[in-house]
């Protein structure tokens, strides 16, 4: 595990891409195949089966550290990471152990079926042997989520360099359902036949935000426009008589959207569609808001009532595999024509719909569409170059998103809470209120949008202006006004204010506005009436 710990440290302590890629590439050239395989797996969110429950880990950690469990539990949210909290409270130790990363994983797997006594003996022995980063990594192997500053993109780049293989081909190989328990380095990275897994999705092509709007497009005739839908990006795969649904976060969501099973009745085998999962009620002109989709996201199985209340369709906007062939290299206009052909006979009850294109001649036409976007329950426009291939990852130039300007409201900060992890000692999580006569009505929380410097200023201020404490939450003097931006507003009986916001964040700190100029509950209700 030493080599892996050294890699982890090199990546973790640097903010520079080149250093990270170099460290990874060196590691991929030197480590054993099985260690390399596990490294890719861990850095892409895969992990060994959990051999020990986190409850047991906490108990044993507190016990070995000689601190009461409550004190351990207090430390955890401040540190923000269980594996790290345990590594920090245990008696310090700088020793090491010669077992490799994969050997530790094998050993962990062997205690999976053992009783708690044996598990405890194993874990305590590991803690006694391993110091520093290695101890932290050992804990991470159990708790999962080895989040380190390495994107899939960086890892793929390093792999490409170390293996002399094509980057986009590697990106595709790393997608999908694989796990180190049932593949090998050779099968995953080197084998000629990369189609082994029928469920394997393609890397999503992601758009950048267009700066300054579409007026910058020099030749409008070379571009195509569509609504930018506000749902979940998804890839529908029809292969070998089966169907698979993948999220952009590379999560297999097939069972969450059983409606899509019927897609095999309407579309031929060997088809892969890129589109947006949306709640769409039969007969409606536009999809329902994102809020109605929310209950579907968390559920692994879907009760009947929810299926009726929030039926999901895939709004298809690209075709990336047709008749079993990868067609990502074809120009968008050609793929689009094939997509339209494939969708032309779809029955109204089919779970797949064609996302319409928006005809336009000038940028002014696009502005007119965008002005109507909120009414169409879209969050803006997508602009795609007609001759663009379907690329992997976020690339500039051919695809742009042109989002609506967010809605905004000026609100008063009334509660503050310290963050965790990166923000462990800063007050970063705030509750905001609007005015209602002399009263203040809380209506949203927001965590993001300010600079570190602003968070530090507010933290100092909060310490001096705390009125009351409720556990970790501090009620502060209502004084500071912030401009809150959000993407949508919905009626919500669960909230005191009666509204729920979509993606609220702090746009700016309004030093210039006194409390008396913050918006009111009436203003909020007016927004609900217009945009809800």
């Amino acid at each position, binding site marked *: 595990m030493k080599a892996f710990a050294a890699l982890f440290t090199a990546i973790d302590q640097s903010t520079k891409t080149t250093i990270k890629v170099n460290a990874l590439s060196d590691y991929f050239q030197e480590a054993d195949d099985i260690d390399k395989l596990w490294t890719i797996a861990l850095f892409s969110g895969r992990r060994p089966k959990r051999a020990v429950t986190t409850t047991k880990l906490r108990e044993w950690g507190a016990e070995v550290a000689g601190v009461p469990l409550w004190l351990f539990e207090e430390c955890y949210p401040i540190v923000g990471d269980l594996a790290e909290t345990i590594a*920090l409270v245990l008696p310090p130790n700088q020793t090491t152990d010669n077992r490799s990363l994969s050997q530790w994983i094998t050993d962990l797997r062997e205690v999976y079926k053992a009783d708690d006594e044996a598990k405890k003996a194993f874990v305590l022995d590991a803690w006694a042997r391993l110091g520093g980063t290695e101890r932290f990594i050992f804990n991470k192997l159990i708790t999962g989520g080895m989040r380190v500053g390495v994107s899939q993109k960086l890892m793929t780049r390093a792999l490409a360099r170390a293996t002399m293989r094509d980057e986009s081909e590697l990106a595709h190989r790393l997608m999908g359902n694989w796990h180190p328990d049932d593949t090998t380095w050779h099968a995953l990275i080197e084998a000629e036949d990369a189609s082994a897994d029928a469920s394997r999705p393609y890397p999503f092509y992601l758009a950048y935000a267009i700066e300054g709007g579409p007026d910058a497009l020099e030749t409008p005739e070379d571009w195509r426009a569509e609504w930018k839908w506000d749902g979940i990006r998804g890839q529908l795969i029809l292969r070998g008589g089966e169907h698979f649904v993948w999220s952009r976060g590379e999560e297999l969501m097939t069972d969450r959207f059983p409606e899509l099973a019927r897609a095999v009745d309407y579309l031929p085998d060997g088809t892969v569609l890129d589109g947006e999962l949306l709640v769409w009620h039969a007969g409606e002109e536009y999809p329902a808001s994102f809020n109605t989709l929310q209950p579907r996201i968390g559920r692994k199985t879907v009760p009947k009532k929810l299926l009726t209340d929030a039926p999901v369709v895939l709004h298809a906007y690209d075709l990336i595999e047709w008749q079993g062939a990868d067609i990502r290299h074809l120009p968008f206009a050609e793929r689009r024509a094939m997509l339209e052909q494939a969708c032309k006979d779809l029955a109204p009850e089919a779970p797949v719909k064609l996302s319409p294109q928006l005809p336009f001649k000038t940028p002014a036409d696009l502005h007119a569409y965008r002005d109507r976007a909120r009414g169409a329950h879209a969050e803006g426009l997508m602009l795609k170059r007609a001759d663009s291939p379907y690329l992997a990852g976020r690339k500039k130039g051919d695809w742009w998103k042109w989002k609506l300007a967010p809605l905004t409201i000026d609100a008063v900060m009334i509660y503050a809470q310290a963050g965790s992890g990166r923000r462990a*000692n*800063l007050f970063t999580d705030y509750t905001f209120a609007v005015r209602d006569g002399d009263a203040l009505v809380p209506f949203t929380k927001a965590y993001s949008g300010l600079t570190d410097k602003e968070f530090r200023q507010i933290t100092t201020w909060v310490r001096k202006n705390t009125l009351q404490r409720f556990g970790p939450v501090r009620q502060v003097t209502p004084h500071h006004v912030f401009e809150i931006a959000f993407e949508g507003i919905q009626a919500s009986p669960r909230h005191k204010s009666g509204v729920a916001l979509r993606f609220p964040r702090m746009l700016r700190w309004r030093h210039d506005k006194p409390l008396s100029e913050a918006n009111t509950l009436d203003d909020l209700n007016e927004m609900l009436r217009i945009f809800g």
Partner: protein
Amino acid sequence: MSKTPVLTFSPEGIYCPAGDFYIDPWRRVDRALITHGHADHSRWGMGSYLATHDALPVMRHRLGDIVAEGIAYGEQRTIGDATVSFHPAGHVPGSAQIRVEVDGEVWVASGDYKVIDDGVSTPFEPVRCHHFITESTFGLPVFHWEPQEVVAQQINDWWRNCIANGKTAILGAYSLGKAQRLISMLDPSLGPILCHTAIENTNAVMRTQGIILPDTVLANKDVSAKTHAGAMVIAPPSALGSAWSKKFGPQESGFASGWMAMRGVRRRRAGDRGFIISDHADWAGLLWAIKQTEAENIYVTHGYTDIFARYLNENGYHAQVVPTQFEGESLDPKDDSGEAA
């Protein structure tokens, strides 16, 4: 029994009714006893100041023309009906715990302290008392400091590595105390040590009072990576990544603070490297110091006060959290040439 406590907590700061003085006051008062020169303890505008001989030069440097008197560690002074004395707190050079005795009852306001010998400050000495006022900046069992020589080696290894890669090492540290401690830990044989003005000024003050530091060079406009290759630059955290730092060419930045123990904070703040070193006591240090005082009544001020006080109460002490308005010290390292951590 309802006699007036020896020390009380008022909006101005810690107050001694028997002697009519304040300790580290927040607001302007006539008579202030100061534990150490950091800005959140030693503020401008007091009628008169009393601090250790070693703390005064820096205070005068920072506060300008003040009415101030020095006192030696251990020297007893009578103020009104109170007897006061100053005892080493080990936090920064000149820092003190202030012992106040009235009618045989002893209180100690410890200010900020650490219990290990850092090589530049007079080491911490426990003072027996009945009532002990303690900070708890790092009052959680996740904080554990490595011995100073271990951190010194990490920093020198980093410096050596920077030199090997043709880079300048820039280490962020607070200008009073932490900076001098770090300078004293450096191996001057590796290369030149350059200091930002704010730090070099404090170095000069400390050298005149007999603190021995390796040679340092003021990083003025004539100094750059060209004139001083392979240098270690010590600068206030705010100078890291600033236009000023550009002249040092290819560089790596580091940050030295107790907060670097947490990976999240390290990633947010550290630049290239974070070194875990603090002028405050770690968990074990706080508990050891409190035990040594033999006090039964503990007042917890800065930091993780609620959690720390609860732990003390479960372990046989009578501990309470001092009201919030006294919680002046930022938990996050300040950007200016401030204090903490």
